[in-house]
C-alpha cells in the first residue's frame, strides 16, 4: 500500500493555460474573442478609412431629407415631399402586408395540397405531386417574374372595358374588375363615418406642418391613421365573438352533463352578425364600386398587380414546401392511431380532428414557421416586379438617390433580422408549450 501524502501545492505555471482543463477553456475563449475583436476591428477600421477616402462618413441625416419619389402603394400618408424615413416605413408596411397575406394563403393552399397528396384518387394525388415538384424546383424569382408576366398578358387592360361593345366586362354585378393593372374590388364607405384617429404624431408628415395662415394642424397628422369606424366595428364584432364563445361553452357544459349537444349555430351566428350589421347600418355603410373613369378605374380598393403577383407566387411557392411538411406531419402519425380510433367507432372526420390533427400539428408547426420566415425573406424579391417594399424603397430608390449604401443596407438588414428573430422567438415559445409529455 502506498502511503498517502498531501498533494503538493501546485503553483500556477504558464503551461497550465494550455494543459489544464480548468484554464484551457478560458484560454480558448479568450483567444477566440481576441480573434473576433481583431477581425471586427480590422473591418471597422477599413470601413472608416474607406469612407474617409470616399468622403462619406456614416450619417443618417439623409433620412430626414425629402424623398422626392412617389410610391404607388402606401398604407400610410405619403407623397414625394415626405422624408426618406417615411418612405422606409411605407416600404416596411408593404413588406409586412405581403408577408402576412402570403403566409395565410400559403398555409391554406399548402394544407389543402398536402392533404390532397394523400388522397386515394390517383389522378388528384399525382396532380398535386406535379404541382409540388414544379414549384419546388424552379427558383422563386422566376416564379415571381412569371406570375407578373401572366397577369399582364392574360388579363384585359382597362381600355378593353371601354366602348360600346367592350371586350371585357366587370364581374359580380359590375363590382369587381380584373385588369392587368390589378384588381379593383368594392370598398367599404361610411356616409356617417367617425373620421380617423391619428397616432404617433409625426412632425415629418406634410400634414403636420402648421399651415401658413396659422390655422389648426390638419387632423390627418400622424404616423398612422386608424379609422374610428373600423375600430368600432371591430370592437362590436369581437364582442359578438365573445358572446358566441360563451354560448359554445354553455353547449359544452350541456354536453358534459347530458351527453347531447344543443344546436347553437344559428344563435351563435346571430349574436355575431346582428350587432355588427346594426353598427354598419348606423354608420351608413355602403360599398364604393370601382368605376371606369378617365384612364383607370376609380373608387374601390385597388390591389395592384405587383402585390398580387408577389403574393400569389410567394404563396404558391411556399405552399409547395408547406404541402410537403403537412404530408410528412400526417404520415408521421402512425397508422395505428387511425386504426385505434376507428376501432373505437370514431368517424373519419372526428378521427382527423380529435386524434390526427392535434398530434400532426406538433410535427408540422415548427417547420411551418420556418417557411413563414423564408416567405418573409423572399418577399424582398419584390423589386423584380416593382412592388415597393422595404428593399424597393430603403435599399432601392433611397439608396440610389442618396448614395448612402452603408447606412441603407445595414438598416435594411437590421429590420429583416428583427422580423426573423421575432418569428423564431414565437416558434420557440410554441415548441416549449406543446412538447409531448414523456417519461
Amino acid at each position, binding site marked *: 500500500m502506498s502511503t498517502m501524502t498531501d498533494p503538493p501545492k501546485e503553483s500556477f505555471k504558464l503551461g497550465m493555460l494550455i494543459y489544464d482543463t480548468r484554464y484551457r477553456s478560458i484560454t480558448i475563449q479568450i483567444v477566440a474573442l481576441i480573434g473576433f475583436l481583431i477581425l471586427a476591428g480590422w473591418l471597422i477600421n477599413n470601413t472608416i478609412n474607406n469612407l474617409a477616402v470616399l468622403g462619406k462618413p456614416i450619417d443618417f441625416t439623409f433620412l430626414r431629407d425629402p424623398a422626392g419619389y412617389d410610391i404607388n402603394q402606401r398604407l400610410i400618408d405619403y407623397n414625394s415631399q415626405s422624408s426618406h424615413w417615411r418612405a422606409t416605413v411605407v416600404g416596411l408596411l408593404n413588406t409586412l402586408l405581403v408577408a402576412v397575406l402570403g403566409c395565410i394563403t400559403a398555409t391554406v393552399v399548402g394544407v389543402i395540397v398536402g392533404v390532397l397528396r394523400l388522397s386515394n384518387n390517383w389522378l388528384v394525388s399525382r396532380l398535386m405531386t406535379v404541382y409540388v415538384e414544379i414549384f419546388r424546383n424552379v427558383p422563386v424569382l422566376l416564379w415571381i417574374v412569371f406570375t407578373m408576366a401572366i397577369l399582364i398578358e392574360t388579363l384585359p*387592360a382597362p*381600355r378593353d372595358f371601354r366602348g360600346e361593345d367592350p371586350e371585357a366586362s366587370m364581374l359580380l354585378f359590375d363590382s369587381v374588375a380584373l385588369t392587368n*393593372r390589378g384588381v379593383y374590388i368594392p370598398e367599404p364607405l361610411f356616409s356617417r363615418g367617425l373620421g380617423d384617429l391619428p397616432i404617433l404624431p409625426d412632425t415629418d408628415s406634410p400634414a403636420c406642418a402648421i399651415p401658413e395662415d396659422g390655422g389648426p394642424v390638419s387632423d390627418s397628422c400622424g404616423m398612422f391613421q386608424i379609422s374610428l369606424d373600423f375600430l368600432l366595428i371591430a370592437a362590436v364584432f369581437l364582442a359578438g365573438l365573445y358572446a358566441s364563445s360563451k354560448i359554445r361553452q354553455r353547449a359544452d357544459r350541456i354536453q358534459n352533463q347530458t351527453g347531447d349537444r344543443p344546436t347553437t349555430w344559428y344563435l351563435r351566428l346571430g349574436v355575431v352578425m346582428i350587432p355588427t350589421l346594426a353598427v354598419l347600418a348606423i354608420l351608413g355603410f355602403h360599398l364604393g364600386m370601382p368605376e371606369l373613369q378617365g384612364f383607370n378605374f376609380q373608387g374601390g380598393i385597388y390591389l395592384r398587380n405587383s402585390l398580387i403577383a408577389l403574393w400569389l407566387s410567394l404563396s404558391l411557392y411556399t405552399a409547395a414546401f408547406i404541402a410537403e411538411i403537412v404530408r410528412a406531419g400526417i404520415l408521421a402519425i402512425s397508422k395505428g392511431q387511425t386504426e385505434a380510433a376507428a376501432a373505437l367507432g370514431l368517424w373519419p372526420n372526428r378521427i382527423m380532428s380529435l386524434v390526427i390533427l392535434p398530434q400532426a400539428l406538433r410535427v408540422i408547426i415548427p417547420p411551418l414557421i420556418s417557411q413563414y420566415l423564408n416567405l418573409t425573406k423572399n418577399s424582398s424579391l419584390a423589386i423584380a416586379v416593382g412592388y415597393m417594399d422595404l428593399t424597393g424603397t430603403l435599399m432601392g*430608390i433611397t439608396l440610389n*438617390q442618396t448614395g448612402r449604401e452603408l447606412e441603407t443596407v445595414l438598416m435594411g438588414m437590421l429590420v429583416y433580422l428583427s422580423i426573423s428573430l421575432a418569428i423564431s422567438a414565437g416558434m420557440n415559445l410554441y415548441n416549449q408549450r406543446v412538447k409531448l409529455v414523456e417519461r
Partner: protein
Amino acid sequence: ATLDDVKARGKLNCGANTGLVGFAAPNANGEWEGFDVAFCRAVAAAVLGDPTAVEFIPTTGKTRFTALASGEVDLLARNTTWTFTRDIDLKFEFVGVNYYDGQGFMVPKELGVSSAKELDGATVCIQTGTTTELNLADFFRANNISYEPVPVETDNEAQQQYLAGACDAYTTDASGLAAVRATFETPGDHILLPEIISKEPLGPLVRHGDNDWGDIVRWTLNALISAEELGITSANIDELSSGTDNPEINRILGTEGSLGEMLGLEADWAKNAIKAGGNYGELFEKNVGETTPIGLARGLNAQWTNGGLLYSPPFR
C-alpha cells in the same frame, strides 16, 4: 493612377448597362455592341491601341456608382445623367456629354392624348433606379395632377407592361422611347408626347481626383466629335493620317504636335480611337441612327454646325 493600372492590366474595365437596346447588348457571339459600348472601345483603342481590349462589366442602376467608386471599373459609360449631386456629392467626374436626352412620354395613339398635361390619373411605367422617378414626381407635382407610378426594373418589362396596356404611358429618356417604339410590331400606333420634362445630358464618367485619366476620356470623346466635324471618318482616316493641310486634323491624328504625349499616350491615340468604330456620327448611325431598327434622329445630338449641341473644344 488609373492610366497605369489600365496599361499594366492591358485591358480597360468599362461599366456598361446590363442590356439596353442600341446602347449595350451582347450579340450571339457574346460580344457587346451598342453606342455606349462603342465609346468604351474608342477609349480602349486610344489608351491601349486595341479596341477589343475592353472588359464590359454589366452594372445596374444600383450598382453602377459603387462599381466606379470602388475602382472595379475605370470608366462608366452607361447613359448616366450628369447632375449636380452626382458630380459633387457622389464625387464623380463627368467628362462630357455623348448623348443629349430628355425624359419624354410615349402613349398609344388610341388613348387620344396629345399632351403630358392631359395625363391626370394615368398609370405611368417608369424604370427605377434612375433620375426619371424624380423628374416624374416633380413634373406631376408642378402641374398639380395625379398619376399612378408603376416602377419596373428593366426596359423589357416596361415594354411588356406598356404593350399589354398595364400602363397608359411609358416614360423614360426620349431616345429609349424611340428605340423601344421602333421594335414594336406596329410602331405607328404609338406616339411620343411633345413634352420633354427634363434635361438628360448622358455622358461617361470617371472617379473624382484622377484628372489625368479624366482628361484622356474627355478628349477621346472630343476627338470623336471633332472628327465628325472635321470630316475624319474611318474610311478616310488612313489617307488623312499621312498628312493634310488642316493643322487641326494633323494634330488630332498625331502627325503634328505632341498632343498624345501630353496625355501620356501614343501619338496616334486619337487615330486609333476614331478607327475603332468611326467618328461620333458613324457610331451614332451604326448603333442608333435612322438606318437601324432603333431609328433615332440626330436632333440635339447633331453637330453645332447643324443646329445641334455637339461642340467640341478645339484641339490645339
